[in-house]
Every structure is written in structure tokens, then in C-alpha cells.
């Protein structure tokens, strides 16, 4: 990035952050995820400063990039949730039915001790952002993303067994 591009991106950050948060928050369930989407958008902007800075409508470029980022977040969470559901089904130990009322109790084997399960669950079920998960583990956001990807691959391998 040139110094001029750095300044332009920085100015756009402060100009657009609140508005982009509003846009992201309209679709994502909490402020942490919305902020993650906005931060990812600016990360992409920093990776492609020419595209942003030479755009005739930099603000519109940011909105479109944010839209795609939101879709990716939602898609990743949905696929992780499906993975969790499939994994849980394979771990059922016992199901008991009560005669007089419609209720089911499902007991599972030890699940939460596995780091992979915890990681995917935090993302898919708890709605935590990568930053939150990274901070609780004392790792970087980038390392956390890699761990999430690895965790998905491990759970998928478990399912194939």
C-alpha cells in the first residue's frame, strides 16, 4: 500500500465503520459477528487497495464487499451447524420415551471434552466471532481460523468412520 492509499483507507474506516456495522448487524445475530464482518471487509480492502482506492465509488465498493463477507459468515456457520447436528446424531448413547407425554431425553457420550467439537460449537451454536474465540485461547485471529478449518476436517473424518 502506498502512503496515500493507507490514508484513504483509514479515512474510509472512520467514515464508514458505523454505517457498515448497521448494515452487518441487520443480518448477523450479534455485534461481535457484525464487527468481524466489517473488520474482514477492511482486511480485504487492505489486500486490494488499488481496487478500493481507484473505484469510482469506494463507499459502494465497501458495501458490496461487506455483503459478500456477511454471506460467507452465514454460510460457514450454517455448514458448521449442519456438521454439529450430524456429529451429535452419531454420538447418541440412549434415547428414552415417556409414555404419558411427548418428551424425549437424549443422552450423549462425552462430547465437550474434544477441542474440535468445542470450537465448531462456539462458532455455529454460540455465535462467537473468530476474534472472541482467538482471545479466549490466546491465539491470533488467523491461527483461530486455521484451527476452525482443521476442526471441521477432523469432525468430517469422524463422520465418515
Amino acid at each position: 500500500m502506498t502512503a496515500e492509499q493507507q490514508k484513504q483507507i483509514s479515512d474510509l474506516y472512520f467514515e464508514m465503520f458505523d454505517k457498515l456495522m448497521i448494515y452487518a448487524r441487520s443480518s448477523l445475530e450479534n455485534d461481535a459477528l457484525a464487527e468481524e464482518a466489517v473488520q474482514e471487509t477492511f482486511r480485504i480492502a487492505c489486500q486490494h487497495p488499488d481496487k478500493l482506492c481507484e473505484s469510482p465509488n469506494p463507499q459502494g465498493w465497501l458495501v458490496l464487499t461487506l455483503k459478500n463477507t456477511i454471506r460467507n459468515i452465514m454460510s460457514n456457520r450454517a455448514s458448521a451447524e449442519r456438521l454439529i447436528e450430524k456429529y451429535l446424531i452419531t454420538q447418541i448413547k440412549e434415547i428414552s420415551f415417556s409414555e404419558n407425554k411427548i418428551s424425549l431425553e437424549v443422552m450423549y457420550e462425552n462430547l465437550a471434552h474434544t477441542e474440535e467439537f468445542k470450537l465448531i460449537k462456539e462458532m455455529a451454536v454460540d455465535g462467537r466471532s473468530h476474534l472472541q474465540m482467538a482471545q479466549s485461547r490466546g491465539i491470533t485471529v488467523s491461527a483461530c481460523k486455521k484451527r476452525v478449518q482443521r476442526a471441521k476436517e477432523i469432525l468430517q473424518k469422524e463422520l465418515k468412520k
Partner: protein
Amino acid sequence: MYEKRSQKSEDLKKYDSMSSEELEQILRLDVDTPDSAQSDTELTLYIMDLLADRRRTSNHNESPAQRAYQSFMLNYLPDEDDTLPKPKNEKKPAAHSGHWLRNVFAAAAVLAVVFFGTINAGAFRSDFWDTIIRWTEDTFILTKNGQNAYNEPSSTICLPFSSLQEALATNDQDSYMVPTWIPSGYSLNEIKVDNTPLQNIFIAYYEKGDKTFIISVRSYLKSYPSLIEKSDDYFEVYESNGIAFYIFSNDTQYHAAWITDAYECVISGDLELDEIKKMIDSINWE
């Protein structure tokens, strides 16, 4: 090109009179609009600007952009060699201070238990996953002071209600499903309310010396699967008035959870098992 509001066209003026929820719905729909379809960036930017102005007017707190910018440079900047100008009026990030609610939830690792709940109206959800009930720490932590690392609601407020029932009634919610008896010595500390287009959450905080517990009620307009965590120590399905209440322990604390057609309710904190059951039995269901 993006137009400032001072140059707004007549077409865009009609959005000025829309409610914030309607405008947010338009933004939500824009995310779902396929790229090939016509997506009006100018309109999107106009609505974002409009909502931002409204929030600045109603909320005099400092924009989080300053803090977020520092976080961006620390956590997200892609290349270590790259940098952005330092923020103006750079401040040290606020220290993360704890909230007493954190003492209510133990941080111990737990076994996950997923189960189905009985719906008191007798309606049976035939879909397997529709009736899984899920709670995590996220569902209950709803403070607004930045201590919550999970779901931070956009509009949590604390109001001086004298009881949880009063808070529910004032917000046009039912109150038949909450306990009418509270263990001796506990007093109501505060009630936090969070209302969004999709759900309403009420949390009543009770204190007795250094002991605390909460009763939370969440109404939801669309159902979604839930997951409850528990430890290995205790789990019981306690029936009262024909309704199943799920009582379990998590480290040193007991929790009770139940659902109705439109509400999820939880008792959680420093309570004895018999106190929880007595609270459950005090629910009127009228």
C-alpha cells in the same frame, strides 16, 4: 456516486419517514439479493446514513470506531509490513472489568446434553431438530457495559420494575410461566430488558449477600434448535403441573429450564435443589 443526504432525491426522501426496523429489514433483504439482480447501492448507502444519523441523535456515546480501529490494526491487518495511520486521539483500550453475573456461571468444562422439551399446549413438533433445546452462557449474558464477550444486544436497558411479572406485563408479554415464590432473603436487584424484532429477553437478578441467581425469560418469534450444557453431577426431569422441568448442575450451581409455546425460561445461580423445585411449584400457569 454516493450522494450526501443534503442532495437527496425525491425518491429517497420517502425512506426518511420509515421506522428504523423497516429500514433494517431493507438492509437485511439486500444481503439476500443475488448479485445478478438489481441491488441499489445508492439506496443502501442512503439508508445506512439515515440509520447512523438516528443513532447518533439518540445515543450520545462515543462511536466504537476508535476502539475497533485499534483492534483492526492489532488483529486483522493482513500484512505485518503494512500499516495504517494511527487513530486520532488514540486511547488505551478500556480494561475489561468483570460483571457479577459472571459469578453465576461456572467456567468448568461440561458434558453437552441435548434434549427435547415438552410443549405445554400439547403441540408436538414432529421435526427432530426443531425441538432440541439449547442454552449456553451466551443466552443469559446480556449486560451492556462491554463485559459480555458473547451476545451483546443492541438495546439492553435496565428499568425500575418491582417484579419480573411487572416487566413482562409492561412489555405486553405473558407472565404465567414464571415463579411467584422467591427464596427467603433474596431481593430483586435489577431487571434487564432487550427487545428486538425477533425476540424479547427479560433477566431478573436477585441477591442475598454474596449469593445471586437469575430468572430469565426469552420470547421468540421463530423457533430454532437449542443445546444445553450440563456437568456429570446431577440431572433430573422434574414434573410439575404436567410440565417437564429440566434440572441439572453445572459445577457448583443448579439450573432449571423449561419451555412453553413462545417462551424459554431458566433459573440459574446459587440455589439449593429444594429451593428451585419450590420456585417451580409456585408457577401459576394461569
